[in-house]
């Protein structure tokens, strides 16, 4: 399946290679570099590139291209999904997945890749299992290992590999038993010029951080499970129980994991928490354009809208922008023409605004389209769909765990056309 893996950084250098079958010369990446050159943006590189003898499947994360070399038919999503899993694992191990982090931990990276694939077929991708095989590097452990000569590598087969709950290791012990659940919802929306909603939907996830001793069996129920239209589960969730009772019943993995992701049915009207008033205009023949933005809260259920960030890709003809924000700071990159305005919290009494003028290149004609505005924001303690967790129960263990639920709403791909 996966023959080799090359890691390519933003400047187009291969800084790591790993082969699972015969060695494939790194010159195969030349086809990838060709595609990279042709692409105007880093994201525009096609994920699947055919070459005379191989196929290159790449993913771009954290400004690193993970290029897998394939020789024969394989479902492309299989490879893509795996590569993303590799990135997730690196992130899990090193905190960040950057070129520097990978280079610093090249031995651990190699050991991980060795365990994750055998002959190009995924072997162990579950983070809990990998962590038993190869312990994540910490400063303390590195020092201790250097002195004592002990290793990062486990000697026993992870218990999870063989058990019916492969995602959980046995013999977990905590002095404080806690289980936290974060319900995070994202609003994807496209708002048109006049402020009406073209499309809006809510996607949500429940991320969990469970630190419980032994083999706890948890159940989580919702006040309004009907809201959930389409769900995908962590493998630990018992599907039958959900089908029958709409209750999440599971033996959780140890540590952080994504329990559930869901889609709220599109029949429900989606509340849009912010509005934008805009006035962007360019005049024919003039080298100046007007630019005005005002943000305001709308349908926020009384909660504050925080961490607001507005960004917009201005037309190519724009030379510079001189604007004044009523709050926060703005930057304009004359090369990429990206305008971004860090607003912060929206104060309903004094609406934030950004006003001023943009200068066009002399001789450039009036852009025929106004830029789209992308907005990011966060609202704490609110699940915009109205989803509420009813209760969380634990079976199978004697102690009383500490339980916590947190709600949050975020902007996903939230765009305003102007």
């Amino acid at each position, binding site marked *: *399946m996966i023959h080799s893996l090359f890691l390519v950084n933003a400047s187009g250098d*291969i800084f*790591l*290679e790993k082969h699972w*079958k015969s*060695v494939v010369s*790194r010159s195969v990446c030349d086809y990838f570099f060709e595609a990279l050159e042709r692409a105007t*943006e880093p*994201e525009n590189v*096609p*994920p699947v590139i*055919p070459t005379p003898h191989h*196929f290159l*499947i*790449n*993913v*771009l994360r954290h400004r690193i291209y993970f290029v897998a070399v394939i*020789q*024969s*038919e394989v*479902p*492309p*999503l*299989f490879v*893509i*999904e*795996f590569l993303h899993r590799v990135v997730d694992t690196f992130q899990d191990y090193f905190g960040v997945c950057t070129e520097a982090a990978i280079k610093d931990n*090249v031995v651990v990276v*190699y050991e991980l890749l060795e365990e994750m694939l*055998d002959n190009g*077929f*995924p072997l162990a*991708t579950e983070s809990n299992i990998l962590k038993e095989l190869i312990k994540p590097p910490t400063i303390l452990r590195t020092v201790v290992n250097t*002195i004592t000569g002990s*290793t990062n*590598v486990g*000697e*026993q*087969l992870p218990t999870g*590999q*063989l058990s019916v709950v492969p995602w959980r290791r046995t013999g977990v012990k905590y002095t404080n038993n806690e289980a936290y659940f974060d319900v995070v919802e994202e609003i*994807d929306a*496209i708002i048109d010029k006049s402020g009406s909603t*073209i*499309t809006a*939907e809510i996607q949500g996830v429940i991320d969990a951080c469970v630190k419980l001793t032994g083999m706890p069996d948890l159940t989580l129920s919702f006040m309004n499970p009907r809201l959930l*239209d*389409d769900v*995908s589960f*962590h493998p630990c969730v018992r599907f039958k129980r959900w089908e029958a009772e709409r209750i999440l019943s599971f033996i959780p993995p140890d540590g952080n994991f994504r329990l559930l992701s869901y*889609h709220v049915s*599109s029949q429900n009207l989606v509340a849009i928490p912010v509005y934008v008033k805009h006035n962007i205009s360019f005049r024919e023949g003039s080298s100046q354009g007007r630019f005005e933005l005002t943000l305001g809260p709308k349908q926020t259920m009384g909660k504050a809208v925080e961490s607001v960030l507005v960004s917009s*890709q201005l*037309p*190519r003809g724009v030379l510079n922008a001189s604007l004044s924000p009523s709050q926060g700071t703005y930057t304009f990159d004359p090369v990429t023409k990206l305008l971004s305005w860090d607003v912060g919290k929206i104060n309903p009494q004094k609406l934030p605004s950004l006003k001023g003028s943009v200068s066009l290149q002399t001789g450039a004609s009036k852009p*025929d*389209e106004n830029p*789209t505005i992308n907005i990011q924001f966060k609202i704490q303690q609110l699940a915009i769909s109205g989803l509420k967790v009813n209760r969380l129960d634990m079976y199978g263990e004697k102690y009383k765990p500490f339980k916590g639920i947190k709600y949050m709403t975020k902007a996903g*791909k939230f*765009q305003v056309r102007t």
Partner: protein
Amino acid sequence: MLGMSANSVSYNDQGSVESGVDAAQENSSIPGSISSSSGAAFSLFSADYKKNEDLKEMLESSKESLKLEAMKRIVGLIAKGKNASELFPAVVKNVASKNIELKKLVYVYLVRYAEEQQDLALLSISTFQRALKDPNQLIRASALRVLSSIRVPIIVPIMMLAIKEAATDLSPYVRKTAAHAIQKLYSLDPDQKEHLIEVIEKLLKDKSTLVAGSVVMAFEEVCPDRIDLIHKNYRKLCNLLVDVEEWGQVVIIHMLTRYARTQFVSPWKEDAVFDENSEKAFYDSEEERKVEQSNLYIMDPDHRLLLRNTKPLLQSRNTAVVMAVSQLYWHLAPKHELNIITKSLVRLLRSHREVQYVVLQNIATMSIQRKGMFEPFMKSFYVRSTDATHIKTLKLEILTNLANEANISTILREFQTYVKSQDKAFAAATIQAIGRCATNISEVTDTCLNGLVLLLSNRDETVVAESVVVIKKLLQTQPSQHSDIIKHMAKLFDNITVPMARASILWLMGEYCEHVPKIAPDVLRKMAKTFTNEEDIVKLQIVNLAAKLYLTNSKQTKLLTQYILNLGKYDQNYDIRDRTRFIRQLIVPNEKSGALSKYARRILMAPKPAPVLQSAFKDRDRFQLGTLSHTLNTQASGYLELSDWPAVAPDQSVRNVEVVEPVKEAGAPALRKSKPAKSHEKFYSDSEEEEEEEEEKEGSSSEDSSNSSSEESASESESEENSGDSNRSSSSQSEKSSSESDSEKKKKTLKNKKLQQQKPDSKDRKQKNGNAVKVESRSESESGSESSSSESSSESGSELDSDSDSGTDQKKNTKPKPVQSKAVIKQVEKKEVSLLDLDDFSPAPVTTPKSSILSPNLLSDLQGLLISPTTSALQASFPVFVPETSHELLHRMTGKGLSGQYRFTRQPCIYGNSMVSLQLTLSNSSDQALENIHISEKSSTGQNIHRFNAIERLEPQASVTVSMGIDFNDSTQAANFQLCTKEDEFSVSIQPAVGELLLPITMSEADFTKEQGKLVGMNESSATITMTPENLSSQSVNRKVVSVANIGVIPSSQENIYRFAGKTVSSGSLVLVSVALKDPDAVITINTEKTVMSSMLLRQFKTALTNSSP
């Protein structure tokens, strides 16, 4: 470069190198030294080769931490793609390290470089072989992983054996590794296919979810066409699917999709297949049709089982699994069930960019055939300005596919936004999409056309050009009403520079010149002026336009046309010259032009059909969805075609499971476990089981002939497995392994019983082993009753209980229970004896004199593992006696100082199964070194010879031992070949003694007599000799015989009969020797198919046994 750096060392760095090394040594002598400090000292040097020297030294140090540090840096080098192969010898020494991390890193290194350094890599093999027997399953598994990853063709037989062994390992993790190793071995040596398929077959029966995914992967890689192997495992795979790890799920689902397409009939009604119109009809009268359908078509329960068991996987977090299930539904499910995959696919669009790309492609293909599926989710395909270009294009494609009368206005409004996009390529694609909508939905054609005309005044070149091209296509459908648009375009002509657009306008002018009679000649006039500066496609259209105008309006354009034709005649491009010449002949009548010019008008002005604007994804449905081939729209290597539904369903009963394999890892309680499994099997309707039985009865008569042979093979394979087990136990008589073999034994008996049960009334067998009637009658009665299986298992259970009771006291078991029928006894007995055999005789090689002369370590390591797979039925054993005599190959006088001797090692050859293993000792008795000693490529007698690797240099008075293999084809014909040095060539020959062409095997006495019974008449030769008194003892007879021929001793229950067995190396034919003493005479009998061989052997035995000297 090397020279340069060497220079710099000489006058610059040398001091520091030394001090660095000193520092390292000092460091290592201080207890608890910190490796990083020495590392710092080393990192002072920049030149690579010097660094490698340091690394070598670190690897050879005695301190683990230093070695580990060195390995870490080497791995760093490998990761960067630097060459570290020269460190191979230093690294490979550490392969047996106790430190797990160090060992793992060495493995990483080995796998990377073994292919380049094959000879050195062989040094590590013995370590892995030891590790394969480690009690820790992780170590066993990783040893197998590395062993199978070393791509060295020589070790193929070792890999094969290791895989076979691991496939029956107790640990499912090791079995999983074995499944992975199958693919590796197959890619290394495709000739092993048949044997590998056997292992795959065995592993497919495995009940562990851990193994399932990997073995199906191996199946897909090695033998995807052997669909028959799946039948019996189909239901099990379906039921296990949910619990298999996610990657395995993907592979299994894809395989099952292919399987289902060959085994079930189509659930789609013939008239409703892939057709938009009929789809509408389908919605109209859903209820009706359902009723109709239920009358016509009943889905196979197995087909339903697959659909039911894959459905929950749509909720998987793994996008590949969701896609796999979606394609399964697409290709297998009835059309009305398809809608359940829509939501999940749309959900995937929230995932990463790359995932979106692949999913959108698949949706694009689906949406062509079935709009209804995705229409409710249309808004999910709206383009965002932040999407990557290829995502945008795909979304556009899907939106266009989804467009219909009801939603077209919404879509067009959305498109208007896209046309204004800053991404001009995307805007151009949108214009094309608008064109497609306009042709597909006639209601909006005019609206679209007007919109496009507006775009002609757009400032952007590409947008205008694209609009022109699309308008041209649209106008072809209804030209007469749109002469004003053509006029408008003619006006724009001067401002348009994109060649394609210019060509399009010119074509429009020519085609519809009758609608614009005034403008067209004027355009031609302008073009005549700029002809030479135009692009080629524009020039062609100018010629075209001129010709058409000449035919319709020759008065105004005659001169212009001629002028243009003259220009074209001398154009640089031959296409244009050709076209000009052709047009001239066609339209200008002269004496040379034939009948064609009469039809010029009809040729040029023929009404042209309007082009069909269709999706680029139209033809993609020839590929299975979700595959790489589908994504690329070209067939990738290894793509497996999805077959069409069969018209008539193949036999369903092939999937009925008859034999229930007990779960392996369960050990002793295996039997109990198998029972619930059996009851689970009953879950399938009773009628099926009845069918099954009926079928058995029917089948039995035809199976009669094959019965006996199948039985045999079963028992043979058992004996092999058993001995494999006891091999293990002989090294460490652990309780575990003995219990294991016990449990295996139990299974065997169970299986045997079943086997018999399966063939109730076979007359053949009645005649063969007369006593068997009893069993038959019983099994008949059993099969009649429903509770048969449980009865038989309980019965065998009791029998086995007694087995495990006796445990250590195996002798007891060898005594057959008189109550039982003969057939059963025979089976049991056979097994017991073979077990006993090994217990008694496996220590034999320990006591035999081991050759004191250089025997390659490798060989002795290998011996335990090697048997020829061709005669896997018989367990090869160790040579009882290895003669130390060596024969002369080359005398030093003839060899100009080079002398050679050879010796038969009597070991199975590692180079090939049919080769005889030889050891060659070459010595140099001259006074100068000999270089490049090797065997010349051409072998004169045609034997297959495995040459030793060339010896680069042999110092005076030195000698070297190498091993080689020769396939003698079971004949004593000498193998002649050329032994070459740098200067000379010497013809040498090796004449094998007939006894060396054999390999010893072990078998039970019963088997021996049975086999002997088969080899009578022609195949038997015997002689009577008079024994010398000192030869009368059993020891001396044994010794004499085994010294002549490489055969194994068979235990004998009679005092005066000695039995020996062997097989020929090449063909694996049995050679059975028995010596019966009748004081003072002895009868030697040899039974073998190889009559020539037997007479030669007989002669040699005679001399050996009559000769009094020891």
